[in-house]
């Protein structure tokens, strides 16, 4: 026990998972002390709007916060921003902080999330080369978002495409570079990639696939992006969105089992019974998928955080959830559920031309994933078809005269 008789839970990481874990402990009537350590200066906040409405200037910073400060204060949750942990000492059940102090824990929750994957290329540290993961990244980027400015986006994933949509609307000159032969290649079917490429092209974004970036040129500020084929693209700024690296170093150095994320069981327990982990940094066994997986998504972070809070309160609630995601680009609402890798059939419902359709991915006759573009019913019923493994005739699924509601 720490300095008092009260049990102390320390949460490392003040992102979505850390914030929800702290308040869920309170909601579960946790009697101990709760301390949340965060590297950033902000209250725990929602990241999805960063590349969407917040970048566009449509919502205030305040609206990003999961909860106002008073809510934590009232619950007795101690938030410590600007705090970095150097080491976990499991034997002493203490954290060594980077400021040289230490902090004892009885229970530890690792919600360390991830950091952007950086491109180690010549010129990568020039001014005007940006990444996007945190509020401060957006605050740095926003003043540069002036009409006519030339923005080159490296990476045709969700972050890159969402930023492209905001930027072109703002009147910037936008180019998206993607190494694969299509955007969103790792996460969606060729038809969806083609659809989004067309939507962006129609809006004025220059989308260049099969394009590998080899470096950046400029004096102090970036002036051009260099491509493998020898071409150069003039740029006033560059945004790189090429994925995330989970922050697992603390766990690994402490001897916890780490394998593409901190390995946890269905109750979010790590290989140390006093330590749980949740969110982007955690790797759990998903029964629905039949395999271990590390997910980078808000619903997963929140769901695991709630399960972790229950575990710390001695009420074991296994975490089993169908992965789902969303992306807003222009006025299109993309809702995705399940993971499509390994599908052997695809059913399209609706009209790609009318920008209102859904792609159902099937494997061995069962729906394993759905990508729904401005089609909430297809998304909602699709989730059910997947998680309840409901067998459905592909012809009915494609037939718009059959209501989605009748299928599950």
């Amino acid at each position: 026990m720490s300095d008092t008789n009260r049990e102390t839970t320390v949460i490392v990481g003040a992102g979505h998972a850390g914030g929800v874990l702290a308040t869920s402990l309170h909601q579960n009537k946790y009697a101990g002390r709760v301390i949340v350590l965060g590297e950033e200066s902000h209250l725990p906040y929602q990241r999805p709007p960063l590349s969407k409405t917040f970048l566009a200037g449509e919502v205030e910073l305040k609206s990003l916060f999961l909860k106002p400060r008073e809510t934590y204060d009232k619950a007795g949750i101690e938030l410590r921003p600007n705090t970095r942990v150097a080491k976990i000492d499991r034997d002493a059940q203490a954290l060594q902080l980077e400021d040289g102090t230490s902090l004892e824990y009885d229970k530890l929750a690792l919600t360390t999330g991830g950091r952007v994957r950086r491109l180690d290329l010549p010129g990568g540290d020039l001014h005007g080369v940006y990444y996007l993961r945190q509020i401060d990244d957006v605050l740095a980027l926003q003043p540069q978002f002036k009409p006519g400015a030339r923005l080159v986006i490296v990476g045709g994933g969700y972050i890159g495409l969402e930023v492209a949509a905001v930027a072109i609307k703002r009147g910037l000159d936008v180019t998206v570079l993607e190494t694969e032969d299509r955007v969103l290649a790792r996460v969606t079917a060729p038809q969806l990639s083609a659809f989004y490429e067309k939507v962006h092209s129609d809006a004025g974004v220059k989308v260049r696939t099969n394009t590998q970036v080899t470096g950046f040129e400029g004096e102090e500020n970036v002036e051009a992006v260099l491509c493998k084929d020898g071409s150069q693209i003039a740029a006033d700024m560059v945004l790189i969105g090429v994925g995330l690296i989970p922050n697992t170093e603390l766990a690994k150095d402490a001897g916890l089992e780490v394998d593409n994320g901190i390995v946890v069981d269905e109750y979010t327990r790590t290989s140390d019974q006093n330590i749980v982990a949740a969110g982007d940094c955690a790797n759990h066994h998903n029964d629905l998928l039949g395999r271990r997986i590390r997910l980078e998504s808000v619903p997963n972070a929140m769901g695991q955080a709630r399960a972790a809070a229950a575990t710390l309160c001695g009420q074991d609630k296994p975490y089993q959830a169908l992965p789902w995601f969303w992306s807003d680009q222009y006025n299109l609402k993309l809702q995705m559920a399940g993971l499509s890798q390994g599908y052997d059939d695809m059913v399209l419902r609706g009209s790609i031309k009318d920008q209102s359709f859904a792609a159902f991915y099937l494997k061995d006759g069962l729906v394993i994933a759905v990508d729904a573009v401005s089609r909430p019913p297809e998304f909602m019923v699709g989730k059910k078809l997947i998680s309840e493994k409901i067998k459905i005739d592909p012809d009915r699924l494609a037939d718009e005269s059959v209501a989605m509601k009748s299928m599950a």
Partner: protein
Amino acid sequence: MPKITFIEYDGNKSVVDATVGNSVMETAIENMVSGIDADCGGNCICSTCHGYIDDAWLGKLPPMEAEEEAMVEFANEPESNSRLTCQIHMTEELDGLIVRLPETQG
């Protein structure tokens, strides 16, 4: 400040102050009312902020937009008085609003 009464599935009741302009969902989240998940943060994407509006208040709410209407019927155990609480913004006129919460969300 208008007040909202949330009644959880187990009968637990909380009466909380709402800020005019904030959504019913935000008010629940700020006050740590259990029973509203709000996974998508109020974007009308997930339907995990589903609540049943007390009959006395149902008619006083602005009607649903198409987006909400499309989602709410697929929420868990929808009824004729179901709404997504992220889409209801508080006004002085809604002082006293009563929202019952479902057993589980989404």
